[in-house]
């Protein structure tokens, strides 16, 4: 019954060694495991085996109270007598599997342990003097670069602005990785574990609305870690910078915008007629605008033509699909936000 002996998946067989190597350790070898159940020293071997069990500090004392019998090793040996396995190890594994398959279980804080297994744990508790259940203590977090991180974001936001919004007040980080990371990895911001998801080549993690509100409330720097919770390893991803909110831009009519900050730079500001300026992989021309704050709904406009726009962190870009039809001369570039109704003039794009 031990799956270590042979693994069959879809008609293919892999030897135990392969799984052992995949899991990063090799099977233990304890002489007591191969002692025959009917051997004179079988009870001694059971006690030796019990004395070597690991990870039992909580469950063994509880099993001890479940099985207070005086001669546990004798009873356990007698229980194994009818098993087919020639050695104690196989007989125990066989009986444990049998117990679990028929529901002959002892429940400890939800864990379903086999009755036979629990008897062995009781023996272990007695051998090692474990009387009080002790939770397993996790070691301190240590820093080690375990993930091959290619790029991540967003790396900055403006005070009060939810970064990379995903709806309902949430926002998310993304981390591109060149190799898959363990499923036990979590992104951690300022010590707070984030809800982490995995896609091929990308790890994402979202901040709950309240947490997001706290993070963007004040300018400063926040540390983002990638933590392997199984191995207690941490790797620094980088720092999220929350910048002070710059003053709002002045609109054409002299009023103060409620959504746009002043444009810092933009380009290209001129091009040759018929040529795809700032050419993109799809062959289209494109314009970029560096602006610290612009709502998600903002769109760039050339003259009165709305352009397909992408609003990023501190930069707004747009494809100019109709570049080939544009005439020589000046074309006014604006940024427009439909919900607020505001339009900010950016400058004049000149076609030569």
């Amino acid at each position, binding site marked *: *019954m*031990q*799956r*270590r002996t042979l*693994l*069959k*998946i*879809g*008609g293919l067989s*892999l030897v135990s060694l392969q*799984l052992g190597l*995949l*899991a*990063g*350790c090799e*099977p*233990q070898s*304890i002489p007591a*495991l191969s002692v025959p159940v009917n051997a004179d020293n079988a009870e001694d071997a059971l006690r030796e*085996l019990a004395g*070597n*069990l*690991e*990870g039992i500090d*909580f*469950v063994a004392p509880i099993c001890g109270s479940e099985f207070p019998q005086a001669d546990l090793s004798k009873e356990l040996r007698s229980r194994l007598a009818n098993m087919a396995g020639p050695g104690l*190890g196989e007989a125990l*594994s066989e009986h*444990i*599997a*049998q117990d*679990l*398959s*028929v*529901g002959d*279980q002892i429940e*400890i*804080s*939800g*864990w*379903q342990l*086999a009755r036979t297994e629990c008897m062995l744990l009781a023996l272990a508790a007695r051998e090692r003097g474990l009387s009080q259940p002790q*939770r397993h203590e*996790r070691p301190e977090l240590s820093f080690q670069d375990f993930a091959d991180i290619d790029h991540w974001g967003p790396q900055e936001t403006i005070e009060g602005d939810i970064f990379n919004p995903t*709806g*309902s007040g949430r926002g998310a980080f993304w981390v591109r990785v060149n190799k*898959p990371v*363990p*499923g*036990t990895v*979590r992104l951690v911001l300022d010590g707070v574990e984030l809800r982490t*998801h*995995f*896609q*091929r*080549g990308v*790890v994402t993690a979202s901040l709950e609305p309240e947490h997001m509100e706290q993070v963007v409330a004040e300018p400063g720097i926040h540390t983002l870690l990638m933590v392997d*919770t*199984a191995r207690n390893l941490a790797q620094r991803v980088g720092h999220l910078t929350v910048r002070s909110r710059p003053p709002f831009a002045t609109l054409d009519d002299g009023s103060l915008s409620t959504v746009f900050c002043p444009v810092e730079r933009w380009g290209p500001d001129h091009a040759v007629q018929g040529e795809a300026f700032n050419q993109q992989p799809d062959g289209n021309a494109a314009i970029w605008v560096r602006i610290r704050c612009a709502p998600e*709904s903002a769109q760039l406009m050339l003259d009165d033509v709305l352009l397909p726009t992408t609003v990023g962190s501190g930069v707004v870009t747009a494809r100019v699909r109709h570049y080939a039809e544009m005439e020589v001369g000046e074309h006014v570039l604006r940024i427009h936000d439909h919900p607020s109704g505001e339009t900010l003039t950016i400058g004049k794009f000149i076609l030569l």
Partner: protein
Amino acid sequence: MIIDALERLPATLEAEIAIAGAGPAGIVLALDLARRGHRVLLIEGGGLDSPGDGVSSYDNTTSGRSYPLTGSRLRWLGGTSNHWGGWVRPFDERDFTDTAGDLPGWPFLVSELQPWYQQAADWCEVGSSDYAPESMGLESRARLLDLDGTGFRHGLFRFSPPTRFGSRYRDDLASNDNIDCRVNLNLVELEQSDSTVRSARATTVNGRSCQIRAQHFVIAMGGVENARFLLNQNAVPGNQSELVGRCFMDHFGFTPGLMLTDAGLQYERGQLDEDLMVVMAPDVNAPGPNCCLTVSAATPDDILPPAFWGNPISGGVEGGHYRIGMINAPKPHPESRISLSNERDSLGLRRTHLHWHLPIEDFGPVIELFERWMNALGGAGQARIKWERKQPPAEGDHVGVGYHHMGTTRMSADPEYGVVNADGRIWDRENLYIAGSSIYPAAGYANPTLTIVAMAARLAEHLHRRLGGS
């Protein structure tokens, strides 16, 4: 062409086929039919892009178990594909043979849909329509549990980019001369005889109105809206058994426990070489519902730590913990239903009221399935299981859902048990069809989108033939 009806709307629109609703079903149906040479009118109640702060037409009330209905519906070109997670999997063979609670299930076998699933994979940009675990590489399969002899098997989910049908196929809709696509135009009324739809009336929120004439009409407004629209008609089509709006279903979640087994198992998306997720489900002939178990790596437990699995009588190798979740097949309860409230939206249509009936008893078979799996895995020496949740959620407790609205215009082999026939045509109307997940009589655990698209492609073939095509 795509025209905004708020700006321009003639008194009459005419086509061979009129489709209301431009989500995945409506868009696929329109493009498929147009490519076969048919003149198609596709109308979408929303605009080209997100309306921002929500859509008042979808305001609703709910009763029964708490259900997040408002946020789970989107009303603009592309429909709910605009927030689709991209999970893709066809329904299983047994989903078409099992009964659906006390009602009959699908009126055909999975083989009927197989050719259309391949097309659906293309529409959804999935890349492969192979869902057999054997299609995974050897290295990937070595990182799964050995389920041989346990009564369970592995199943794959694939992932669409995800395809946002509105933006992905917008240029195709705009450039196809056979398609007249109107956005911000809402179907509100059918003019019917006893057996046919003669015409329909559509309106805009700024008061424009037009008559729609077509040989065939398809309602593809979404799993909730399809039923709401039918119920808003003076003579409710397909309601001979009063099933319109009833049997509302969604895949519901349950997270029963934690597993200690080998470290390094790879079931989750992002862990495997391909863009896949692996789940465990009962064998084809196993008793109980066709639910699946999901596996996600978890922080180590401090009662039975990973070291326990390293003991030779346990796993004998490095251990790891995994959270076990379940995606569950819903039962179609007639009392789980869409009905109409007395309040009307700006188009004059009565608003939706959802009563979600997910009784405690429906969790019984789910918990039994988990217990069977737990004992089978333990019996095979594969794992130790922590059974954290043995009791079903109480009536008032929140239950996770998939935002998969299904069943409210169910398909059947007999008009007594459904609203549409096996072609998707409303039983008592010669030229009125329903597309989308509202026609599902049963749903297994697979996400609905791939099947929505497959069924839409199948309906396109059917309509093409009805219109004289070969």
